């Protein structure tokens, strides 16, 4: 058990790499590309099963508050350690990653025919990198995984993508790489500031830097702090993507193969929001609080803009992609409300978005495999031909819209209540900006219902408009099977969110306190009496 406790995360990171190597070996010796999906599926399922060990009750948090921590020197010359661990914040994201991977593999069961070896190798490598991002506690190691996740995705879009794939792949790469290079400079800057102020030599260790800051041994000068904050924030904002950095997302989503879109929506975007919470909030609490109004403004622009643009999309997949922009806007909104409820809701909404939007991309993929088109105008009356498909699609859409008792509702509700009580925006005698922002975000929810349901109406209801659609087969067992866990989660998370929220509670609380009530920090905003929606919710 000790061995497992010590190395669980390393195993989770390395298992897919082993799978990738075996895939290559298998292909080199047996040349049976059709068997590779089984190998890949086996490894992703195995990784999911292993990741369930994270639930183990016997795990104890180290002094730093992280579970399954491991910290060994890596490159002494630059003082970087292989330091990994999970806490409540990363816990669900790791599980989400390992959970979504087998589904992604299954989703391309028949779709990938050309160059299958490389496809599965890239999927597995991507899984490693994604898990690495969520568990690394050394800034350099984090950067390493963050960048490493780019390459497999770049190939997935570029080789197996749609018509416009080259443009989309290069845009995706350049946008994200540019942001993360800025972050690299900030990371190195932090290293030297740490060395300078503590006299302990440089360190990339997140926990060490954070402890030094908490103890007052490391105080960032205001201007430097703001620059470092900005470098981190831009890198993550591009990844989220926050308006106006979002333009790569619709292209990447639309061109990517189904598995790529699912992973992109479910996990890759979460790296941005995760990074903001983990690094920006913890390392730069004052700057986070002071700039919250910028992020909130951009988030609501994203919510409204994403919804409006989604409304006019002729392509179903592009529509779902723009709905991602709007949904991620909600996550940012909740995070930067700096209320416990809003932040909890944001974390919850990250998972919801992964489940619901992941499922939507799967469903779009199913129909694309059958008809090789995603244009809304090519469909109509599908409910008559594919009743089961229509039912599940509408179910997923409702979860994405935020129907009560489904997962989306819980997240959005928490975020809006949180924003309502937020103390980061100014409250003047005439305008209470919290109310204004919450109100606009609320309209966003309505818009979401409009564009999604309108799309449903045009695609599924009415008469069958195209003869080609008459002979479409309904979902097969594989497709139902891979949707089932997602549908189950949508209900479960909508009805009983407690286990999820309990896990994240302590971390979120800690972050919220660090940002809003930091010792010596000045909170000059007018104290607003919290509306007591709090009590009835609990």
């Amino acid at each position, binding site marked *: 058990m000790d061995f497992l406790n010590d190395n669980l995360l390393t195993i989770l990171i390395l298992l897919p790499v082993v799978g990738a190597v075996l895939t290559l070996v298998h292909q080199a010796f047996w040349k049976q590309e059709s068997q590779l999906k089984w190998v890949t599926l086996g490894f992703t399922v195995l990784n999911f099963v292993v990741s369930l060990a994270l639930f183990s009750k016997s795990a104890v948090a180290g002094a730093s508050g992280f579970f399954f921590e491991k910290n060994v020197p890596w490159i002494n*010359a*630059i003082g970087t350690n292989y330091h990994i661990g999970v806490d409540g914040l990363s816990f669900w994201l790791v599980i989400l990653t390992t959970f979504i991977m087998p589904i992604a593999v299954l989703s391309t069961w028949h779709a990938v025919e050309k160059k299958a070896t490389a496809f599965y190798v890239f999927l597995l490598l991507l899984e490693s990198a994604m898990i690495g991002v969520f568990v690394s506690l050394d800034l350099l190691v984090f950067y390493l995984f963050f960048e490493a996740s780019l390459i497999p995705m770049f190939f997935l879009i570029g080789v197996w993508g749609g018509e416009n*794939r080259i443009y989309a792949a290069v845009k995706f790469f350049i946008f994200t790489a540019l942001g993360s290079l*800025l972050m690299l400079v900030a990371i190195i800057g932090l*290293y030297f500031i740490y060395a300078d102020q503590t006299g302990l030599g440089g360190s990339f260790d997140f926990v060490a830097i954070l402890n030094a800051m908490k103890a007052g041994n490391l105080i960032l000068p205001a201007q430097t702090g703001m620059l470092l904050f900005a470098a981190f924030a831009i890198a993550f904002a591009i990844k989220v993507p926050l308006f106006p950095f979002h333009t790569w997302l619709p292209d990447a989503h639309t061109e990517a193969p189904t598995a790529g879109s699912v992973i992109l929506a479910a996990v890759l975007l979460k790296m941005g929001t995760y990074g903001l919470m983990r690094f920006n909030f913890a390392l730069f609490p004052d700057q986070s609080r002071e700039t919250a109004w910028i992020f909130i403004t951009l988030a609501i622009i994203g919510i409204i803009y994403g919804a409006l643009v989604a409304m006019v999309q002729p392509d179903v997949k592009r529509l779902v992609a723009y709905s991602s922009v709007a949904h991620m806007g909600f996550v940012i909104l909740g995070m930067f409300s700096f209320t416990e409820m809003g932040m909890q809701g944001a974390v919850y909404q990250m998972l919801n978005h992964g489940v619901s939007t992941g499922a939507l991309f799967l469903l779009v993929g199913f129909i694309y495999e059958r008809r090789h088109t995603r244009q809304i105008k090519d469909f109509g009356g599908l409910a008559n031909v594919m009743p089961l498909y229509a039912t599940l699609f509408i179910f997923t859409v409702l979860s994405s819209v935020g129907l009560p008792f489904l997962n989306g509702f819980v997240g959005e509700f928490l975020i809006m209540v949180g924003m309502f009580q937020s103390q980061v925006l100014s409250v003047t005698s005439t305008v209470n900006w919290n109310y204004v922002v919450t109100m606009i975000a609320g309209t966003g929810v309505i818009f979401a219902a409009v564009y999604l349901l309108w799309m449903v109406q045009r695609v599924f209801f009415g008469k069958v408009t195209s003869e080609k659609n008459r002979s479409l087969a309904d979902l097969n067992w594989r497709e139902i099977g891979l949707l089932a866990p997602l549908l189950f989660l949508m209900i479960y998370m909508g009805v009983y969110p407690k286990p999820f929220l309990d896990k994240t509670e302590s971390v979120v609380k800690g972050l919220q306190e660090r940002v809003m009530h930091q010792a010596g920090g000045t909170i000059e905003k007018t104290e607003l009496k919290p509306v007591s929606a709090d009590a009835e919710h609990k």
Partner: protein
Amino acid sequence: MNMFLFAELTVPDPNVSVILPEMIVAVAGVIVMLYDSFFPKQRAVSGAIAMIGLVLSGIVLATMWGGNYPATSWNGMIAHDNLRLSFSFVFLFVSAMTVLISTVWVERENVPAGEYHALLLFATFGMMMMSAGNDLVIIFLGLETLSIATYVMAGLRRGDLKSNESSMKYFILGSFASAFLLYGMALIYGATGSTNLTEIAGKIAAPNFPVNFPALLLAGGAMMVIGFGFKIAMAPFHIWTPDVYEGAPTPVTAFMAAGPKAAAFASFLRVFVLGLPLVAGVQASGYLHESWTTALAVMAMVTIIVGNVAAIMQDNVKRMLAYSSIAHAGYALVGFIGAGMAKTDQARDEAIASVAFYMLTYAVTNMGAFAIVTLLSQKNDRRTQFEDYNGIGFKSPVLAFSLSLFMLSLLGLPLTAGFMGKILVFSSALGSANALVTSLVVVAVIGSAISAYYYLRLIVVMFFRERTTEWIAPKITTAIGAVLVIAVIGVFYLGLFSDGLIQRFSRPGAAAIVRAEK
């Protein structure tokens, strides 16, 4: 005084064991030459002798790490330190790889292999002398030995106009640069009265160093910056690079981009960082130090920008790699300036080690990339345009994926050698906490971001485009296969597990201490 001079002349300080690696390489060169004149046209044999010489020299070099040798020998002309050992290691690696890469080309173009291998070994000898030379004269001799050999190597494809152009250009401009260097050395001698770097450093450090000499010292330093700047292809002395690299036979280009450049860096570092140090309280050294660090920092910025921006516009893979090598010289200069600005001796040694390590990562990646370019180029380097790489990705996955890996390493993506190299040089530069150097690092990072475009372009071309014309995957020969395996493993090894190597590069005793502890 006369007695002393006499004694110095009659009692030289021969220490063969110190220069054993150099001697092995030189002797191997002579053997290849002699063997070729008796049994001409035996390519495999002359290549094998060259390889044996290089490997043997490498083994001897490895045993010298942490060994008990005097810091200088041969009357102070040969230095034995980290700088020499780590750079020599890089040279031997580059030359051995070059021998392997050349096999395809030597066969294809019917090159006089004996001459070629002998020249390569002499060039290697020259490079090793450049990194070991602790005397301006030795450095110059090493440089000339190297240069003359490479002039000839660049022109080995006698029937090809481009190769001739390359050779002529390199020769004329190279001689010009050597003249600058020599003039600079003469002026430094005039200012300090010595050609020995240790003595020069001592003279400058002396508190009574004549104040009217800085002019000579500065002029000499400036001349040497030009001379070395030409050799490392630092902007604005880089104009020759693309033409020479494009025209030279591909394996020779690979060699020139990684070997001679590293050698010039080695002497450049030794002369400026160790020979002309900043000494507190001595005005002349302050002037000199400030002017060369400032000049180099500015030129490094220009080098990075010019290299990266020009590389974007290239349609020929060799020319793209040539411009990329200019940009990489710029990144290495960042570490160089870090060494010059270092506040402590330890920081200085670490910065020097970071430059050596950077050259090693560049060599590993670059040799791998050029091996593939050589293999794909066919006779007379016909297939070196980007469009010749269209859609070969899945037709020849081994070559294409290795080449992609090398491109990503050149780009400096994590997990690869290139990332580790960049992190090291950047952090050693940032350690000096100087505004100019910090902005230099920012420029270097922006440069890396720009470089993503053209490195990715090759990947995009190979994988994302479809091939319209017929294409037959070339057979991967054993030698090229070996180069690829070494380079791929090297890229990952240096990117992930380079800790021990970096320590070895920066502290000669460290390895021995670690071993003792175990």
